[in-house]
């Protein structure tokens, strides 16, 4: 099977979710990558080094900057003439592009796969991760989004993909990019961090959140996350949100601090290797998922932990 993987990139670098997506494609067959964007030479070279890649198809055109689906989808459709499967990470951009490609090809997409069970069979989460469905596609081509954290990442080096320039239909004149308002942070990215420290409603305010959560995260060089309750209360911006409606994370260690453990939140972090929960309520559902729990006042426990680490 010949697969085509959409490479998600930012500021000249391949984004982390791409590597898990390549790993999923490797289970299906030969791998070509698509690097689309403006001035993407360095991205194409980084992509060519990913282990197991055959070709890197590069569409360098201003129309493909900002991953506008109206412009990228027709390009992918054109390239799918000689590929059997298209895979994109189930990131906000991947989810935006892939279904548009699928409909243009009259294919029913398989969303956010967790595993590859066979050439046309996959598992995927439904009902906020409370039910895992095994589905088999009957379409002639496969269009797939991949939950990248469910796959062991493909190695970033060791590959020698052949870089080939391609061109597509260009700007469709339907949409334009206006601006981005992307949070700048020196911390690791939430979805790929080895350690995540998350806070919940029990922090009480944005100031307390900063005062308690951030020093621990700084000390552990961890990413900072939050529950939906903390986001809705305005303690932190919405891109901090871990959960079914936010980001899905799978770090080595996840700290849930002042988080009760709503189904919604647990769906976003239950694949962490080790979960540490700190909560005043001994009956909080989070303790049913945590490997290590501490019951007590987080305003005393977290500073003590930060000091002793």
């Amino acid at each position, binding site marked *: 099977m010949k697969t085509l993987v959409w490479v998600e990139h930012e500021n000249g670098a391949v984004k982390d979710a791409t590597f898990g997506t390549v790993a999923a494609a490797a289970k299906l067959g030969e791998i070509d990558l698509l690097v689309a964007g403006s001035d993407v030479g360095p991205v194409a070279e980084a992509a060519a080094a990913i282990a197991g890649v055959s070709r890197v198809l590069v569409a360098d055109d201003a129309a493909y900057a900002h991953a506008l689906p109206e412009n990228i989808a027709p390009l992918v459709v054109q390239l799918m003439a000689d590929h059997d499967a298209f895979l994109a990470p189930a990131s906000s951009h991947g989810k935006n592009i892939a*279904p548009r490609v699928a409909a243009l090809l009259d294919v029913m997409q398989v969303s956010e796969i967790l595993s590859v069970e066979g050439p046309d069979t996959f598992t995927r989460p439904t009902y906020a991760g409370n039910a*895992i469905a095994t589905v088999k596609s009957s379409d002639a081509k496969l269009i797939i989004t991949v939950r990248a954290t469910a796959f062991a990442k493909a190695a970033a080096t060791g590959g020698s993909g052949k870089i080939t320039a391609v061109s597509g239909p260009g700007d469709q004149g339907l949409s334009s990019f206006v601006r981005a308002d992307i949070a700048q942070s020196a911390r690791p990215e939430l979805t790929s961090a080895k350690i995540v420290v998350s806070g919940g409603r029990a922090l009480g305010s944005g100031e307390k959140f900063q005062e308690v959560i951030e020093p621990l995260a700084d000390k552990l060089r961890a990413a900072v996350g939050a529950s939906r309750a903390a986001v809705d209360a305005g303690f932190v911006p919405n891109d901090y949100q871990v959960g079914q409606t936010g980001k899905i994370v799978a770090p080595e260690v996840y700290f849930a601090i002042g988080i009760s453990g709503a189904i919604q939140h647990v769906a976003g972090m239950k694949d962490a290797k080790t979960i540490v929960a700190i909560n005043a309520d001994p009956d909080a559902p989070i303790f049913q998922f945590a490997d290590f729990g501490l019951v007590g006042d987080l305003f005393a426990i977290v500073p003590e932990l930060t000091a002793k680490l």
Partner: protein
Amino acid sequence: MKVLVPVKRVIDYNISPRVKADGSGVDLANVKMSMNPFDEIAVEEAVRLREKGAATEVIAVSIGPAKAQDTLRTALAMGADRAILIMTDELVEPLAVAKLLKAVVDEEQPGLVILGKQAIDDDSNQTGQMLAALLGRPQGTFASAVSVVGDKVEVTREVDGGLETVSLSLPAIVTTDLRLNEPRYASLPNIMKARSKPLAQKTPADYGVDIAPRLTTLKVSEPPKRAAGVILPDVDTLVAKLKDLGVTA
């Protein structure tokens, strides 16, 4: 400008779904069903556009069993003007939903279609993007702000690193994210009034759309359970456990 709002009847979001013992699916017998929460946000946004004068009529449409009428009545009580039910007891996948919606769009010619970004049952997150593709129109997915300016709509989107704003030529397709608005509760007088608002009944065959599924669900299982761990007596014990895991400052 008309606004079309597709709504789906799904398991209520407060209910914990239970996987059937035979692995054939999720048990929906005698379970409370409600409007998909992202669709409520879509209805609210459409009604607000009409209240601001940016839209003239809000049409709700649902594809599903006869019971989906209840969901449409909820949309009408929230302020939609009329409703269309495309009745079927079959399971309809996002691709087929998008084809049916395209047929409705061809008939009604709305300037905007506002949909929930995903349904909380199958979590596909596809229908809006597919509809946009089939119509050859632009899409503003995961919207946290929508403003109609002349013949364009500006959509602020929730993306992985933060927010991004795009400008789309109308007609356009918008899908809603959680923070776009807080949907209103339908008042009792509005619930009463909704009963007499027009609700047209159709079938997929009326639109000539083949809804045969492309995916077969082989089985549905519960996710692997995490074993509950231990409650530790104090911070020092936690620090020791973390050191064992190699977690140190």
